C-alpha cells in the first residue's frame, strides 16, 4: 500500500465545522481554537444546497455559509488561509460530490493540494463509485476517507481494506445530528470494523457529550464531533461576528471543544 501523508496517531479528536459559518474569517479563528483545544484532525465542511447525509443543524449552517457566498473553491482557499494563520493539524475537506464534479476532479485535487489540504471525504461517493477518484487523489497525495455504516455488513471488509488515513464509522442509521442515545450494538460494530481495518477507526454521527466520548474511547481510535460543535457555532454566531465579543466567544467555543476531547486524553494517559 502506498504511504499517504495523512499519518495520525490515536486517540483522535476530529471536530467538524462548516467553511464560512457564520463567516470565512470566523472559520479561521475557530480552526485555530480547535487546534489549540487538542484537535488531531479538522474536518472542514463545504456547504451544499442539498446535503442528503446531513440533519437540520448542518443544513442550517450550510445555508448560512451559502448566503455568505461560500463556494467549493473558496472553502479550499480558506484552508490555505488557515495554514498562513498557523493551523498545522491535518485538514480533511468534507464535500458532496456534485460541487467537485463542477469544479472538475483534477482541478479540485490540484487546488486542494496547493492549499494544504490533507484528505477528502465525500459522503455521497460510495466505494463502488469511487475507484478512479480515489486513484486520482493518490496522484495528488490526497487520501479519500472511506465510510462504513451499520448496514455495511459484508461490505466492511472490502471498504476497510482500501481505507486510507482513517476509517470513518457512521454510528447509527440516519443523518448527522445530535442523538440522545447511540445504539447498543455500536460496540460490536466498531470491534468488527477494527478487525478489518489497517488504519485508525473513528466514529461519528450523533456524538455530542463527553460521556459518549468516554464510552467510545474503549472501542475505537477516535471520535468525530460535528453537529454538537456546529450547534455551538450557531448559538455563538452573533457574538462571533461582533468585533469586541469575538475573542470571548471563540474562547467559549474552544472550552466546549476541549470538554468533548478531554475523555480521550484521559484514555491516552491511562493506557
Amino acid at each position, binding site marked *: 500500500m502506498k504511504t499517504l501523508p495523512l499519518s495520525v496517531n490515536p486517540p483522535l479528536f476530529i471536530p467538524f465545522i462548516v467553511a464560512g459559518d457564520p463567516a470565512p474569517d470566523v472559520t479561521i479563528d475557530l480552526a485555530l481554537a480547535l487546534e489549540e483545544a487538542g484537535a488531531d484532525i479538522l474536518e472542514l465542511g463545504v456547504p451544499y444546497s*442539498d446535503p442528503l447525509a446531513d440533519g437540520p443543524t448542518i443544513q442550517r449552517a450550510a445555508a448560512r455559509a451559502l448566503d455568505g457566498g461560500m463556494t467549493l*473553491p473558496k472553502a479550499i482557499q480558506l484552508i490555505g488561509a488557515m495554514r498562513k494563520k498557523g493551523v498545522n493539524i491535518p485538514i480533511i475537506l468534507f464535500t458532496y460530490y*456534485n460541487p467537485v464534479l*463542477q469544479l472538475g476532479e483534477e482541478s479540485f485535487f490540484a487546488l486542494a493540494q496547493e492549499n494544504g489540504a490533507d484528505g477528502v471525504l465525500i459522503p455521497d461517493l460510495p466505494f463502488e463509485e469511487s475507484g478512479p477518484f480515489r486513484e486520482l487523489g493518490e496522484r495528488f497525495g490526497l487520501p479519500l476517507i472511506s465510510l462504513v455504516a451499520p448496514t*455495511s455488513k459484508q461490505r466492511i471488509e472490502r471498504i476497510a481494506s482500501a481505507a486510507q488515513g482513517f476509517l470513518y464509522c457512521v454510528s447509527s*442509521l440516519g*443523518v448527522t445530528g445530535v442523538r440522545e442515545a447511540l445504539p447498543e450494538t455500536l460496540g460490536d460494530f466498531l470491534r468488527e470494523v477494527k478487525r478489518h481495518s489497517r488504519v485508525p477507526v473513528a466514529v461519528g454521527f450523533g456524538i455530542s457529550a463527553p460521556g459518549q466520548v468516554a464510552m467510545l474511547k474503549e472501542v475505537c481510535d477516535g471520535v468525530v464531533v460535528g453537529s454538537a460543535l456546529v450547534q455551538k457555532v450557531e448559538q455563538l454566531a452573533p457574538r462571533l461576528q461582533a468585533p469586541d465579543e469575538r475573542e470571548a466567544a471563540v474562547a467559549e467555543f474552544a472550552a466546549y471543544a476541549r470538554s468533548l476531547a478531554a475523555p480521550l486524553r484521559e484514555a491516552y494517559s491511562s493506557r
Partner: protein
Amino acid sequence: MMERVPNEYGRFGDFGGKFVPETLMLPLEEIEAELDKALADESFKQEYIRILQHYSGRPTPLTFAPNLTRQVGGAKMYLKREDLNHTGAHKINNAIGQALLAKRMGKKKLIAETGAGQHGVAAATVAAHFGMDCIVFMGEEDIKRQELNVFRMKLLGAEVVPVSSGNRTLKDATNEAIRYWVAHCDDHFYMIGSVVGPHPYPKMVREFQRVIGDEAKEQFLAREGKLPDVIVACVGGGSNAIGMFYPFLQDDVRLVGVEAAGKGIDTPHHAATITKGTKGVIHGAMTYLLQDEYGQILEPYSISAGLDYPGVGPEHAYLASIGRVRYESATDDEAVAAFQLLAQTEGIIPAIESAHAVAKAVELAREMPPDETVLICLSGRGDKDVQTMMRHLGAREGEDIATVR
C-alpha cells in the same frame, strides 16, 4: 442497436449509478436483488397485472381525438388515457409494482415523496390496499398548490409531512424522504415516484411503467395497422415518458419529451433540465440538472408541481445524449392554452403536466400531413389543477373566473 441499459453498475451510458451515503448501499443492493428475482418470477408479474386490471382499471383506452385533430388540421391525434387510471394518473402503475415488491421483501412501511401529490396519493392508496403504513413527504409550497391531494392522502390514512427546507417543493421533499429512509431503512421501503434516484430505482420504475407503452403499441397497431409517427410525453422526472417510450425505442418512431419551460427557458424560471441543464449528481444519480457554476442545485419553476424538478431520470439524460429522444419544452402559458383546448374540444381535462405534452403535440401535428399520426401520453387528469387554473386565468386576464373562456 442500442446497448442494454442499465448495466450492472446501474449506468445508462455515463448516467445513473448510485451516489448515496454508505448507509443506503445495502438496502439498494437488497432491492436490486429482489427486483431481479421478481421480474423473472411469472407469478409476481401475474399478480401485478391482475391488480392493474381489477383495481386500477387497466388497460387504459387509446382514444382518438377527432375534434382536436380537426381543429389543429394536421396529423391524426391519439391519447393514451392514463388519466383514467384509479387515482387519476399513471403513478399508480409504479406504486402497485413497488408495493408488491415491498410486500415480497416483508416491509410494511412505505416512504414516498410527492410534488403534485399524484404519487403521494398513489402511494397512500396502495398502502391502504395492501394494509401498509405510509408516510409522504411534500414541500410546503406544493401543499399550498395541491391542498386537495393533501387531504386525499390523509383520507387514505397516510401521514403527510410538510417539508420546509429549500424552495419547499419536490426536490426538497425528495431530500427529506431520502434522509428519513437513511434513518429507517431497516424496516421501511422507499417508494420513489419517478425514474430518478439511485440504481435500481430508474430501472425499477421503468419496468413498472412500461405497461403504458406496451399497451399503447398493441392498441395502436390494432387501430391504425401501423405504429404512430410521433409520440409525445411530458418529462419532469420522466416516468410516464419512459413508460411510454421504452417499448418503442427500437422502432422507427419519433419520440419527443416535453419539459416545463415555466416563464420561458431564457428566464431563470423554468424546469427544463435537459434543455438547459448540465451534467451532475442529484438524488443519487448522475444526470442533467439545473445548477450554478459551483454545483449548487438551482430551484426550478413550473406552474405544474409535477414537473417542477431540477433533475431528470438518468435514462432520459442518456436517450438525449445519444439523440434517440428529442427533448423540447412548453411554457406555462402554452400548457394552460393546451389544457383549455383539450377540455373544450374533447371534453377531457388533462393534468397540467400532461397539458405540456398536448401543447407540443399540437405544434408538431399542425406541420404533419393528415395521413400521419401523433400519440400523446395523457399521463393524468386535471381535477387537481382546477384551482391552479382558476388562479392563473384570473390573474392573467384580470377578469372574473366565471367569464373566462
